[in-house]
């Protein structure tokens, strides 16, 4: 996790216009397809330098948001600003500073990876020396150096890694990645996440996914989108603190069965789960539980071996935020 980026990327209050320090700023962003709202008044700010995870279930509106940011779709209402400029008005000035990877990147199957990167760099009008150096470096980064096969023969993982590489050919200030790890095998996922993690501190990464483990691994700030609305935006730790359903303690004693009986009737204990010698207590009031539990254990004549707070997972936060609303 990038602590510096996390500190800088905490939610900011809505500003009247695009902020120069924000890499991405959405205000009341709405996108209608017929009567269906894919985006319903999205407000979102992503600070420069953040590795930002854009979380949401399938159909939440993540891809629509990214398509608007990349200039591929127009909002029905509201505004979208990238690097301080409105995406509708800025055109090529914005596109020259962003890199974009769609969820399923489409390549010219007759090209090799090197040819595609040279082509992509040519669209940015890079000079020959810069282009040669970047193509070599990005092929190395993507693990495609020396691969002479045409892209049409590539595996999904190779295409995805090439997709990330082509998005970096212009050394973008903002990298937009739509589900970059979906449908990849574990090794392909690791490779792509390593590439993203390597960008920390150098470029802002706006990364949509529904794979929570990926977000926990590389992102410093996140927003959760559900049914076209942002339901939470914070650092990962902040989200866990604010949205974890209940709080938990892990307890190990010499006779777990007796402790289960001892705590079952206590008012601040919501749930007791046992896994071998370890009890996981979900409590409604953590400070009270932390103070009272050692006394309860001592009163029961039990020996305390372990007592610690159990971290709420991002998955539990996600389920709390969006799980109950799904049809």
């Amino acid at each position, binding site marked *: 996790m990038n602590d510096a980026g996390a500190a800088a990327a905490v939610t900011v209050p809505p500003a009247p216009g695009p902020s120069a320090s924000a890499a991405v700023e959405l205000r009341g962003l709405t996108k209608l397809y017929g009567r269906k709202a894919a985006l319903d008044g999205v407000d979102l700010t992503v600070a420069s330098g953040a590795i930002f995870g854009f979380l949401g279930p399938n159909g939440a509106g993540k891809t629509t948001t990214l*398509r608007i940011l*990349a*200039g*591929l*779709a*127009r909002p029905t209402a509201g505004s979208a600003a990238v690097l301080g400029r409105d995406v509708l008005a800025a*055109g*090529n000035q914005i*596109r*020259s500073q*962003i890199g*974009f990877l*769609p969820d*399923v*990147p*489409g*390549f*010219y199957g*007759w090209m090799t990876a090197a040819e595609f990167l040279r*082509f*992509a760099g*040519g*669209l*940015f*009008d890079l000079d020959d020396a810069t282009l040669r150096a970047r193509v070599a470096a990005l092929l190395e980064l993507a693990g495609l150096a020396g691969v002479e096969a045409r892209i049409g023969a590539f595996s999904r993982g190779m295409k995805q890694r090439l997709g990330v590489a*082509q998005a970096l050919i*212009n050394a973008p200030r903002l990298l937009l990645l739509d589900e970059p790890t979906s449908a990849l095998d574990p090794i392909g996922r690791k490779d792509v996440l390593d590439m993203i993690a390597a960008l920390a501190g150098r470029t802002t990464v706006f990364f949509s996914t529904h794979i929570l483990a990926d977000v926990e691994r590389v992102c410093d700030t996140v927003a959760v989108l559900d049914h076209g609305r942002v339901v939470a935006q914070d650092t990962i730790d902040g989200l866990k603190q604010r949205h974890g359903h209940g709080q938990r303690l892990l307890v190990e004693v010499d006779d777990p069965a007796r402790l289960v009986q001892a705590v079952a009737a206590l008012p601040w204990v919501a749930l007791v789960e046992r896994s071998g010698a370890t009890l996981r207590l979900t409590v409604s009031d953590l400070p009270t539980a932390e103070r009272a539990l050692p006394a309860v254990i001592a009163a029961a004549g039990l020996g305390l071996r372990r007592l610690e707070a159990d971290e709420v997972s991002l998955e539990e936060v996600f389920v709390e935020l969006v799980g109950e609303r799904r049809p």
Partner: protein
Amino acid sequence: MSAFSTFLGKERRETFRTWRLWILPGITLGLALLSPVLTRLTPELLRATANSQPGVVIHVPPPTARDSYVQFMGNLGQLVIIAVIIAGAATIAAERRAGTAVLVLTKPISRAGFVVAKAISQLAVLVCATVLGVAVCIATTVALFGAGSIAPFVAAAALWLAFAAMILLLMVMLSAAMRSQAPAVGAGIGLWIGLLVFTGFPLIRDHSPAGLMAANDATLRGRDVALLWPLVTTAIAGAVFLAAAIWFFRRREL
């Protein structure tokens, strides 16, 4: 190198490294070779048919170089125009369907530049295919029939090229306006048939691109044909189709 010339370079390489090379140039060159040969063999084929049926006598005058050119022009006006329609319908729709348009258009190339580069590359293929086809047809015809009158054939082919270029730009527009290639092909064939119908109405024919479709035979015979209005309206229609293609594509979400 600018984004536009980079994309145009990609189009050129794509022509030589994919199926695109075999559609228009392949069909045109094939017909340029086959048309004179079929014209040369037609009397023998008809006589063989007649000989297999007692009592049937078919008199066929000896084929000439002009017959060979008429045969080729007929094929250009039908088979190759259909190939132009199919290839033109894929111009933008295929890049959208494959997802390549998304990767390209999130880089600093405008949608107008994208459409114009696609149109230029397709037009270049059409011009090259036509020039090669005409050259091959002339060479084959001269080999089989001796030297005929080449100038009227070249003039007729040039008129056909102007008409085919307009049809190609029409297809670029339909490819930008419609969701996929198939409906664009359907609409293109429908409009082409509409122009064919117009050739039966002299007032419309003489003041529209349909006049170019009707002018081939007269041009091959060396007769003077009033071509100003058909040429002017064809040029205007082509420009309007290209502008409309840009307009449609700028509004299309990807």
